[in-house]
C-alpha cells in the first residue's frame, strides 16, 4: 500500500458500475432435470452407454465421446460426500458471522454442489448424504429446490 493512497491529496478516480441482468435458458436437459426435481422430487442423471458414464445433473450430450444421451436415470436422493469446505467469507468478500459448510455430493459419475446441514466435526469424506428438498408447493424448479444435504439418519 502506498502512502499516496492515504492522503487527502490522493489523485482522483472516476467510479462507475454496470447493471448486468441475464436470462439463462435451462435447455433441453436442464428443463427436464428441474421439472423432475420440482414435480417429482427426483435427481436425474443421463447415461452414456458407450462410455459407461452417468452425468448428474443430466446433460443431453456426453463430453467424453460427444454422443447424444437419451437414457435418463433416477439416481435417488442419497449420494456420497466427495469433498467439503467450511467457508468463512461471503460472496462480497466479507467475513461471515456463521461459517458455511459446502460440499460436493456425488451421484453416478457427477454430483450436486450444495450447502451441508451438519456439524463439521461429524463430516467425513465418503459418508452418505441425503438431499433435503423443499416442500413440493415451495419448489420452483431451481437448484434452490434443494435446501441442502444432511447426514443419512441411521
Amino acid at each position: 500500500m502506498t502512502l499516496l493512497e492515504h492522503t487527502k491529496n490522493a489523485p482522483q478516480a472516476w467510479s462507475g458500475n454496470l447493471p448486468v441482468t441475464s436470462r439463462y435458458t435451462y435447455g433441453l436437459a436442464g428443463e427436464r432435470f428441474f421439472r423432475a426435481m420440482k414435480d417429482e422430487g427426483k435427481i436425474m442423471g443421463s447415461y452414456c452407454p458407450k462410455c459407461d458414464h452417468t452425468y448428474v445433473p443430466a446433460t443431453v450430450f456426453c463430453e467424453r465421446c460427444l454422443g447424444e444421451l437419451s437414457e435418463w436415470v433416477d439416481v435417488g436422493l442419497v449420494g456420497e460426500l466427495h469433498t467439503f469446505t467450511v467457508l468463512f467469507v461471503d460472496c462480497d468478500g466479507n467475513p461471515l458471522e456463521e461459517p458455511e459448510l459446502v460440499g460436493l455430493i456425488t451421484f453416478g459419475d457427477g454430483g450436486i454442489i450444495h450447502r451441508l446441514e451438519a456439524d463439521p466435526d461429524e463430516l467425513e469424506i465418503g459418508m452418505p448424504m441425503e438431499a433435503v428438498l423443499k416442500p413440493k408447493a415451495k419448489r420452483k424448479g431451481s437448484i434452490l429446490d434443494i435446501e441442502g444435504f444432511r447426514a443419512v439418519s441411521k
Partner: protein
Amino acid sequence: MNERVAIVGVGWSGFRPRTPEVSYKELIYEAAVRAYANAGVDPRADVESFVTVAEDFIEGTSIFDEYTPDQLGAALKPVHTITGDGLHGLATAYMLIRSGYCDVVAVEGHSKASNILTHPNIVAYAQDPVLNRPLRLNTHFVAGMEMHRYLFETDTTQEQCALVAVKNRRNALKNPLASYAADLTLEDVLNGAPLAWPLGVRETAEHSDGAVVMVLASEKKAELLAEKPVWIRGIGWCNGSPSLESREWGSVPYLQQAAQMAYQQAGIRNPWNEIDFAEIDDTYAYKELQAMESLGLCDAGQAGALVEEGATEMDGELPVNSSGGSLGVGYMLEATGLMRALEAVLQLRGEAGQHQIEDAGIGLVQSWRGVPTTSGAVAVLSN
C-alpha cells in the same frame, strides 16, 4: 517456418498492491517502452503484431480489446486480445512467429487489481449461473474443496501446504518486485485466519498491480537483437471439464496434458533432472504441491515431502518459485503467467540479482487462471 523463437526483450511496471497515481494505460505504457528499449526495437517500425490478455469484467470495460493498441504502439497494426492467462498470450505470440507469419511480436499482460471494487462478485460470476451461482457462495469454496480432496487422496498434510507459503514469502524478501515478502514461521501460517477450511488466508495470494510486456523474435532476428536471448523450447495449454460436478477434484489432469505438450516440444523426458528451476502456480499454497505433481516433477503425493526436505528452496535441488510466486509477489490476474515468465527470463539471463539461481539453464513456467477455472498453461524456457 521459423524453427526457434526467443524472448528478446522484457519490460515491467509495478509491482505494487496499489498504483493510485497511474491509469492502467500508463502502467502498460511504462512496461512497453521498457520492453522495446530492452529488445532494441522500434515498436512502430519493427514489431509486426501484438497480443494482449485481458478479461472484460476484470477491466470494468466491455470489448476491452478496443482499449489495448494505443499504449503499446499497436494502433494500425495487427493486434488481438485473448481472454486467457499471459502464458496463453505467449503461446499465441510464439505461434505467430513459429508459423513464419511474423518475425517480431510483442505480448502484454497487466493487473490493475486495486481498481476492482467488487472482485469476489466478478469471480462468482464465473460460476455456472444455473447450478452454482444461485447458492451465492464466495468462489474460494472451490479452492477449499479442492485442497481438502487433494489432501485426502494424497495424504499430503496441511503443514506441508503451509510450508509453501513460508518458503515463497521468504524467497520474496530478495525480490524487489515482491509486495508480500515476509519471514513467517509455519505456526504463523497455520494460526492465521481460516478462509475456506482447510485453506487459510495466509495460504492465499493477495492482489498486486503491474504490467509485463515481452518482445519475441524469430531466430534470425533474435541473433541481431539480443545478446542473451531466452528460447521458448516448448509451450502447451489445456483445459479440463469446467463443470464443478464432473471435474476431477484431487488431481489436475489438464495440467498433466499441458505439461506433456510443452515437454514433448522441448524434448524433456525427466523434468526433475532436466529442469533447473520452476515458477509455477501458487495462487493458493496447496496448488504449488498439486502443480509439482501434475507437472511430473514428482509422483502424486510426493511434493509435500520434497518441500519439507528443502528440495524446492532457493539452494535446493530444484528451486520452486524463487521469485516468491503469487504468494510473495502478489496475484496479478491475467498478467500472472507473464510475471512468472519474467522471473524465468531474468534467471536465465543471470539478471535476477539477489535471488539469482546459480547455473540456471532451463526454467519451467506454469500458470492457472484461478477459481473456478480448469485452465493450465506451461512453458519451458532456456538460455
